[in-house]
């Protein structure tokens, strides 16, 4: 089952997600990137129905870019979160998207922030959050070990502990995870935590 989780540290925010693309009992691939880089300083970790996830996150990404092209300045994280919630809320009673979102961003002057946006468009600004079956383990780990203004090393240590907990305790635990970070230098991939390497496709 899909897990997305994240936390806000001192001057940065981290979003981690599992990387398996699953259909019923079949694992299509184990290196599916579910944390999208929205723009230079925003990350969008999404979990849910695969088609909706890709469609909706790409839609948000293109609209964020469009705003920047039209107005010359990027959207703030709060504005992006409210826009995303608005799209989910509008679609909710017509054609709902089954996508849970953790939006993390860094704004000059405001610092790092993270928003929890449910698939039914419940939005809340949070310091730590998680979606999926993994959340039962991650939220408890973070409740115990998280404190405000963590350093990057401490935060990665906590993320790793959450990943270990998911791998140990979740029955169909996803093998691989991707960790992405956003801080004043931008949004970028931080690391992969792989326990199963995807086989290289050999050209026939």
């Amino acid at each position: 089952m899909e897990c997305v989780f994240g936390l806000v540290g001192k001057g940065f925010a981290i979003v981690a997600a599992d990387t398996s693309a699953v259909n019923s009992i079949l694992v299509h691939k184990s290196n599916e990137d579910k944390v999208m880089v929205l723009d230079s300083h925003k990350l969008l970790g999404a979990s849910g129905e695969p088609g909706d996830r890709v469609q909706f996150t790409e839609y948000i990404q293109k609209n964020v870019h469009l705003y920047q092209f039209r107005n010359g300045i990027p959207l703030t994280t709060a504005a992006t979160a409210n826009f995303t919630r608005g799209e989910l809320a509008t679609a909710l009673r017509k054609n709902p998207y089954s996508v849970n979102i953790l939006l993390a961003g860094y704004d000059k002057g405001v610092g790092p922030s993270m928003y929890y946006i449910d698939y039914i468009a419940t939005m809340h600004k949070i310091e730590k959050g998680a979606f999926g079956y993994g959340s039962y383990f991650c939220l408890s780990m973070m409740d115990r070990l998280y404190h405000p203004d963590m350093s990057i090393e401490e935060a990665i240590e906590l993320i790793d502990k959450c990943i270990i907990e998911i791998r140990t305790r979740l029955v169909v635990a996803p093998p691989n995870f991707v960790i992405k970070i956003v801080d004043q230098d931008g949004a970028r991939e931080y690391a992969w935590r792989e326990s199963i390497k995807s086989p290289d496709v050999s050209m026939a």
Partner: protein
Amino acid sequence: MSIFEYNGSALVAMVGKNCFAIASDRRLGVQLQTVATDFQRVFKIHDRLYIGLSGLATDAQTMYQKLVFRHKLYQLREERDMKPQTFASLVSALLYEKRFGPFFCQPVIAGLGDNDEPFICTMDCLGAKELAKDFVVSGTASESLYGACESMYKPDMEPEELFETISQALLSSVDRDCLSGWGGYVLLVYAALLTPTEVQEKILKGRMD
């Protein structure tokens, strides 16, 4: 589980002497899981009018955005703030518009009307208004709240006593409801002669579970 119990909420508003208080819990949950402990359910419409929205959190947020929009338009046209009674009718109308596909939220409205007369009312998700002279409650803890308020309420309480009463009523009720709690938020608005309206906001620490 009912859709009204998906996120969990508790709201209460009480009338005092030239003052009113509105209080809510702070939990945001997804069924059995607690997501946040600082969720805002009471919103300001203008200095003398507040609305609390219980029920499904997404609909509470959407309703609040629609109401702020309508009130700002009203302010532009009428060049004044809406009276609480008018606002209550607006909320009721907006909810009934969605009669066959409603917003799953139950508002609690509290404000100071003409002559600093406190006004409170609640309505169901379809907009059926219920005006009360003493207190109104809403949310998953509403049954406990009815009992607590009925026993603790006295008419014409001064602001300090009203604050105490509403806090105790809220905390004791949410302790009996697993879906609401994690602290409380109380807002007290007091209109005194010759001084501008005083607003007090306090966070309560209750049982954090």
